[in-house]
């Protein structure tokens, strides 16, 4: 049985020790072995107390100053993906780009940032339809000592201006690759010519910049789950080893066409777990590459290396609108991209302000009063509490409320399944499993154990 402390310290223990915990009957040996694993701190153990406090503090997320912006310079798009989450508009529509006033306001916000590092993600629509706006923002960021820009693009059109942006060493490319050619075409590009153009452009950027600059994410239809090997093969063929599996989200357009998605959540969880197991097999068979599923790796690293990833969907506390915000084509500000899409699909208005008048206000503060799992009665009884988090927007999008008992939410079910898998693998004795875990945890070698077992 898994015992986990607030600090994230954990060990496997036999039932008798848990029974003794329940009846206040711990033996001297019990106390020693629990203390050895950091699960018990004796009153007279000053170092143990300091260590525990330090470990706790490292687990506490929260947010610093604003240093991460998701910008949507245009809602126009030159594709029409079946599951489109962003309520795109047609490429030649008018009035769906930043106007001068909005651009000016965004640049002023950048000027006012008090940090010396910045990360900006360009979303849309298709942001490369407005390379001039991307350039204006990037150029305004020259003053920051550390800069990272991610352009999320469908790679359908690469002209000189776009390539010049990509050539910058501080620019990264994120695109969608939904699997083998027929899946990708069915869900995204439609005809053969459009599909071929995408594939050529993807190959072009990977060849020109290498795989570290390019990431690709598959959007997967839980109602039509793709063959795992075919999906992985399509990534490997393009030299990309990281796959961030995302299920179709029923916000925006996706909601209208995929109403049955809610019922497929369980199928999705099973697929995700099987996918990770398949990667373990493939990594063992071919030691020359390390395939990983990004979200599983993030969960795995949450257990051992808190703070290693800054994944804003999985941290605790998880306040919104503090260290990152989303700016829409019309200047409205949202706490997350999901919130923007939700608002666009008419479910609920989650705008917390705009770039002209700011976004500190009641809506944001009300949400943030509930942005932690630490005091939630359900989460307090869950062994995964120190590793898990809180996603208010996900709850709102599915249930229209944030006060459902945690274990009745899909966020909880999804993470229970994820962490069940994480800990099953942590305690696996199979060399193939240990090999993949060690690679995903970025270790030089492969340790003989990943978790303690109490005798």
């Amino acid at each position, binding site marked *: 049985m898994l015992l986990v402390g607030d600090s994230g310290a954990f060990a496997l223990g036999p039932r008798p020790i848990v029974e003794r915990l329940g009846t206040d009957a711990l033996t001297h040996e019990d106390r020693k072995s629990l203390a050895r*694993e*950091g699960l018990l701190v004796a009153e007279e153990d000053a170092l143990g*107390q300091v*260590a525990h406090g330090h470990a706790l503090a490292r687990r506490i997320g929260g947010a610093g100053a604003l240093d991460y912006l998701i910008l949507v310079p245009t809602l126009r798009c030159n594709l029409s993906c079946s599951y489109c989450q962003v309520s795109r508009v047609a490429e030649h529509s008018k009035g769906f780009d930043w106007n001068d006033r909005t651009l000016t306001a965004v640049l002023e916000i950048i000027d006012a940032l008090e940090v010396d590092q910045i990360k900006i993600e360009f979303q849309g629509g298709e942001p490369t339809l407005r390379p001039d706006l991307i350039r204006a923002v990037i150029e305004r960021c020259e003053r920051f000592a550390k800069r990272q820009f991610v352009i999320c693009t469908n790679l359908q059109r690469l002209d000189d201006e776009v390539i010049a942006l990509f050539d910058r060493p501080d620019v990264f490319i994120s695109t969608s690759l939904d699997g083998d050619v027929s899946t990708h075409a069915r869900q995204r590009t439609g005809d053969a010519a459009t599909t071929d153009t995408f594939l050529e452009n993807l190959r072009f950027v990977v060849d020109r910049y290498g795989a570290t600059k390019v990431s690709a994410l598959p959007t997967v239809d839980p109602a039509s789950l793709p063959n795992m090997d075919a999906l992985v093969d399509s990534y490997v063929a393009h030299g990309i080893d990281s796959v961030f599996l995302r299920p179709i989200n029923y916000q925006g357009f996706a909601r209208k066409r995929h109403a049955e998605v809610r019922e497929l959540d369980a199928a999705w969880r099973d697929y995700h777990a099987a996918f990770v197991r398949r990667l373990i097999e493939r990594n063992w068979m071919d030691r020359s590459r390390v395939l990983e599923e990004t979200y599983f790796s993030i969960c795995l690293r949450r257990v*051992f290396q808190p703070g290693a990833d800054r994944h804003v969907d999985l941290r605790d506390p998880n306040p919104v609108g503090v260290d990152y915000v989303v700016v829409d084509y019309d200047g409205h500000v949202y706490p997350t991209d999901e919130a923007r899409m939700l608002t666009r699909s008419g479910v609920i208005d989650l705008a917390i302000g705009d770039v002209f008048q700011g976004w500190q206000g009641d809506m944001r503060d009300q949400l943030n009063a509930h942005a932690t799992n630490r005091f939630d009665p359900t989460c307090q009884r869950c062994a995964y509490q120190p590793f898990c988090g809180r996603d208010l927007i996900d709850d709102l999008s599915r249930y229209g409320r944030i006060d459902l008992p945690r274990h009745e939410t899909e966020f909880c079910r999804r993470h229970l399944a994820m962490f069940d898998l994480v800990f099953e693998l942590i305690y696996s004795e199979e060399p193939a499993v240990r090999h993949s875990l060690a690679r995903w945890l970025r270790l*030089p*070698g492969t340790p003989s154990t990943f978790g303690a077992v109490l005798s």
Partner: protein
Amino acid sequence: MIRLTLPAMADAERPYVARLGRTRGTNGVHDFELIDEDVDGATYVGRNGLVAIDGATSDELEGDVVIVDPAGGRAERILRRGSTHNTLLVTERCDQLCLMCSQPPKKTHVDRFALFEEACLLADPGSLIGVSGGEPTLYKSDLLGMMERVLSERQDIEFHVLTNGQFFDEADIVRLRDPRYARVTWGIPVYAAEAVLHDRIVGKEGAFERLETSMAMLARAGARIELRTVLIADNVQALPSLASYIARRLRFVEVWSIMQLENIGFARTRWASLFVDHAADFAPIGEAIDQAMLRGVRAQLFNFPRCTVPVAWRDLARASISDWKRRYADACSPCRERDACSGFFEWHPTEQAEAGVRPL
């Protein structure tokens, strides 16, 4: 091998600090100017009179800060210009007796803190100055006072202090929180995850428990700590469990340095029973590193020639041996990783060095 102590004849009666140079550039009271040089050495003049130093050229001595000991007939190069390995030996007394001690302790102590302080104020810009012994914190208040005054006067200087951590107490917590200590790193050895082995290695009963008490205080003070573990036959198999201990109880340290043995002092007489040939079996070391890094503890290897470390961990092997005691084997000349490599200690058994290398 660079000699740090040179024979010298001086006019003055008592020890003094001098900065040697060909010209009296800055006109500081400590500046000494070269007035003569021949094949045996160089002669300088300054406010304390003349000093003739043998065994080095004026080129080698240019810009060096030395302590001249007229009665002892020597000049000690305390802060050598252009070297990143300057260390102040503040005492030779120690309360422990480590099995592998490279600087076996003496019972006497010569108080040179005032001289050291003068010398530090003359250091080159951006200097990292080492402090060692014996056990420097046997004279804790002198040591802290000296460092604090230097750190105040020179915002660009940093200290790295080797200490066994046996003498920190509650009163130090507030003192060590002073912002100046952001420029001090404490290099503290820990040899095992439990008292019996650690105490035996350091030759002092109760050392481990006292160390844990100090660590708790240093953590509360926000002190910067480098943990150091010398690899010997006695602790190599227990290294993985030490790694787990560090990850669980000492996670607040900046880095864990695993160090190969230096063939000097007690280690020389006990070499055969202490030295671990890591090239023959790297497994416990690799496992220890992996266990530490698994939980986010930074680990590095000191004094491990790169070719003797399996490639998976090779980048953790630092060029760690001080310039004045470093050499390479003859076989190393074609190696392309020489500059990144620690090489060997000057006094490492030659046959072992030559037999063990493989140019990369």
